[in-house]
Each structure stands twice: as C-alpha cells, then as structure tokens.
C-alpha cells in the first residue's frame, strides 16, 4: 500500500455525468487487484477536506484508470483536473474479488459506477460469463464494450427503458436464472445497497456463492476510524462488525447482515 503524489495523464467524458480519469501511479497500478480501491485527496479542496474512495477501473503498466460519476463537491473538483495536475493518492486498498471461479459461470451484476471494479475483474478473471448492467437511464450504462471485447455476454436494464430491458437489473438476472436452472453460477456484484441485497438473495436462492462490493462513505480508508462499518454474520452464526475499507469492500454475499431500507 502506498501514499503517493499521482499525476493526471488524461481525462475523458464517458457519458453525461461519468468520466474516466487516467493517472500515473506506477506502484499502485502494478499492485492493483480487481475490487480494490484508491483513496484520493483532490488538491483543489482545502487541506481539511476528507479523501474520497474510488474503485480501480483498470490498471495498465504505470497507469491507473478511474471511472467516476460527478455527484458532489469532491467529484466536481475531479472534473477540473487536467493533464499534468497532481494529487495525493493512497492505494491499493481493500481486499478485492477472488479470481478463481471454481468452474462456475461468473455472473457480474453492476449498477451505475459499480461497473468499474467489475470491468477490471472481467479483464483479470480467466473464466467468461454474463454481465448485467443496470442504471436509471441509458447514460448510466457504461463499459459494455470492455466486456464484449473480452468475450463476455452483456445484458442491460434501465428504469426508463431507454436501454436494454425496462426495469431493475434484477429483471434480466431473474430471466437468466429461470433459463439456466441447473447452471452452477458465482455472483459478483457492485452497485447500490439495495441491488447488492437483491443479488445476495438470488445467490442464496440458487445456493450459489456470491461476492458483493459494498459502498459506504469513508473517512480514513484504512480501518482506523470506524466510519464505514457493516454488520456481518460468520458461517458459524457469530456476528461481527466489519470495516468496509479494510475488511472489504468485497464480502461474501451470504455473510452480510443486510440492513432494512429506511
């Protein structure tokens, strides 16, 4: 794990609110595993500002790729970065997804920017399988080519029907499950809490293993502050409080004690 000053190589807009930031961060890029994240401090913010976590979207040689959605103050600052700008970057952080699918068909389920670590996973995992990408509208459906270029099958769903099926991403998921009742699968999911929970339910119902990458607001990113906790249940039934940044962000779907929606 490294805390470095990274330099922006380039930045491009992917769709409406989504951009891809390419940074020079050799040590982090070379160590990066799919599912891990970086914690960055945008220099434009006052020194007091907290860092922001972003999944690693791709790592090629010395270059690290992030895919982000502009949602607030920090991501707006990211927008302003130009080639040559520098900022503090800590990573790679967290545990990442397991790369061995044990002969099961990998099913990747992504919501919005949750597609970033799954695209990285699809590039590093030996197996091929299905990718389901959901979003509010077509603009939230990203990285399709990343997957199809590598031989993955992609299905999409949007809430407004502007791309793929009309509904939640669980719609194509349920269709696939219904069509392949006997196929042994393993799930990998990253996206909103409710989506992860739904995927965990599907995995449990077909007795398949599943991995979810949780998205909790973070402060330290290294397990020190306890801002990002999630209750978990071990296979032996004992519950414990995990730190998403340090013990995750990837957890066995079956071990998460899902909170009720408010």
């Amino acid at each position, binding site marked *: 794990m490294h*805390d470095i000053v990274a330099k922006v190589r380039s930045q491009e807009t992917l769709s409406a609110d989504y951009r891809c930031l390419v940074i020079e961060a050799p040590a982090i890029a070379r160590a990066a595993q799919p599912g891990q994240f970086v914690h960055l*401090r945008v220099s434009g913010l006052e020194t007091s500002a907290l860092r922001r976590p972003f999944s690693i979207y791709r790592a090629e040689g010395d270059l690290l790729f992030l895919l982000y959605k502009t949602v607030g103050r920090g991501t707006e600052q990211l927008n302003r970065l130009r080639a040559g700008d520098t900022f503090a970057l800590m990573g790679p952080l967290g545990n990442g997804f397991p790369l061995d699918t044990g002969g099961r068909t990998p099913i990747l389920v992504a919501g919005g920017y949750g597609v970033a670590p799954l695209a990285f996973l699809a590039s590093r995992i030996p197996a091929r399988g299905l990718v389901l990408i959901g979003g509010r509208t077509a603009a939230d459906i990203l990285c399709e080519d990343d997957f199809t270029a590598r031989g993955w099958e992609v299905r999409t769903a949007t809430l407004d029907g502007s791309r793929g099926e009309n509904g939640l991403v669980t719609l194509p998921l349920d269709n696939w499950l219904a069509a392949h009742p006997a196929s042994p699968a393993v799930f990998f999911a990253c996206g909103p809490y409710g989506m992860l929970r739904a995927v965990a339910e599907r995995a449990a119902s077909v007795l398949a293993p599943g991995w979810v990458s949780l998205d909790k*607001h973070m402060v330290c990113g290294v397990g*020190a502050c306890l801002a990002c906790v999630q209750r978990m249940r071990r296979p032996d039934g004992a519950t414990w409080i995990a730190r998403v940044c340090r013990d995750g962000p990837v957890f066995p779907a079956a071990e998460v004690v899902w909170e009720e929606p408010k």
Partner: protein
Amino acid sequence: MSARPDLAIDLAGIRMKNPVTVASGTFGYGKEYAHLVDLRALGAVTVKGIRLQPWEGNALPRHVEVPGGMVNAIGLQGPGVVGFIRDYLPFLRETGVPVIVNIWGTSQDEYAEVAARLSDVEGVAGLEVNISCPNVKEGGASFGADPRTVAALVAAVRQRTRLPLIPKLAPNVPSIKPFAQAAADAGADALSLINTIPAMVIDIETRRPVLANQVGGLSGPAIHPVAVKLVWDAAQAVRIPIIAMGGISGPEQAIEFLIAGAAAVAVGTATFSDPGTVLRVIAGIEAYLVRHRMTSVRELTGSVRI
C-alpha cells in the same frame, strides 16, 4: 554546527522521544496506519477509546464533512479491554512506542475497572480518561460536564491504577479552569484537551439529522483557535502537563499549542487526509527549534509572550 535540539519529554512519567502523539480514535490501534507511518517515530500512540466490554458504537452515517473539518459520531465502537489486550496490545508492545490507552465507561466503577485491568498488563504507558465524548448517551460527556463529577471520577480511577492518568476534558464549558483544577486535585498526572465540540448537521432536503446519532462532535482546523484558548487557560490553572489537540494540520498549529502551554500535542482529523501529518509535525517542530536557537522543546512550552 550546533547539536540537534532535544525533542524528548517526560510527560508525567511517560518518556516520549518527541512531544507528538495521535488523537484517540483517529489512528485506530496503531496497526492500521503502521504501513504508512513508522510508529517508532512517534512520541506515543494513543489508541481508540476502550470500555470494559466490546461496544458496537452508533448506526451509520457516523460522519459528515463540514467547512474546516468533520462531525463524527462513531460512538466509541471498540473491542473491550480483553479484546484490546489480546488483539491489539501485543503488536503495539513490539514496536516499543509508548502506548496511551483512551478509556471510558458508563459508571465510575467501569472506568476504574478498565484502568485496573490495563494496569496489570505490560505495554501500557498511560491512561487517557475520556470524560468528554459527545457521542454516547451514557458515559463520556456526562461525567465531564461538572467539576464535581470530574473530581469524583478521577479520584475513583486513581485508586485503581498507578499508571499516569490523563483526563480528557470537554471544550464546551464557560471556563476550563475549575475542570482542570478539579482533575489535578483529584490526582490527575496530566490533562488532554480538547475533545470534539458538540455539533449537528441537518440535511435540508430530507429535514433529517445527517448522523444516525443525530448529534456528533466537530473536529479539524475549524476548532483549532478554540482549542488554543482552552489550552492557554488550562495551562494557567494547573501545573500538570497538558496534551493539546484540536485542528492540528501541520507544525504551525502544534507549535502554537506548545507556546500556549502544552507539553505535548496530538494530531487527529488531519491524519485522515494526510497520514504523514504527524511526521511533518515532528520534523517541523525540530526545524522551528533550530531556527529559533532553542536547545529543547521544553523551552517552547508556555513561552507565549503576554
């Protein structure tokens, strides 16, 4: 060429190689930052608050960013004294860095019991007694709000430990002096100040408090001038040493605390955005002493010119 200035201090019996520690709750149990910060470079490591039993803390969200800092309501999640001794202390002991354990409870007896348990094991250099956490319903701040309860609590803990005892005071008082004096008179060896300032953030779209705990504590650069005032006031009221914290983001704020009367300082929230802050602070204090031709950091303590 002159000799390097002496950064070492003896803080109520805790031998620190420099006057810089970390603020409880912002550095975990040391291990979490050990791959980024060489713990042996620190004057001491102060760990997250510990009570007798494991404690789950508050629901999420536990923090929110605000101008000049953050508001947190972690709620003192921790492994309990047994879990701490088993899972965290051995690693710290191995580094050889002095370990200050921050303790709390919901009764005087619990505080005293935690202190006693930690006095029986090796590797604990001192106890910081948190009587000012705004984020738990019972315990914490409820003991710190009146000089009499402060005195009673410190006296009760004093009876059960010989370790250096460092009550951590609340900033939200009309005058810190009676609190500092009560703690000193009851047997405190040093004082820590300040804890976070009680605060609240409401999301105006949902009209709900942002924090699950509704209220929390403000930390970061925003509170530094408030902390300097309290440290200065306390230093004039008592002779025991003071560990100062609140909004240190570089050597300048640490030096300001020392000048105001602190014997040592702790880096808190700044570690989150820059884990190297604590090392920068140590180096910056040394450079300041060189520049001002001081031979020891002890010359700096209380050197404010009025």
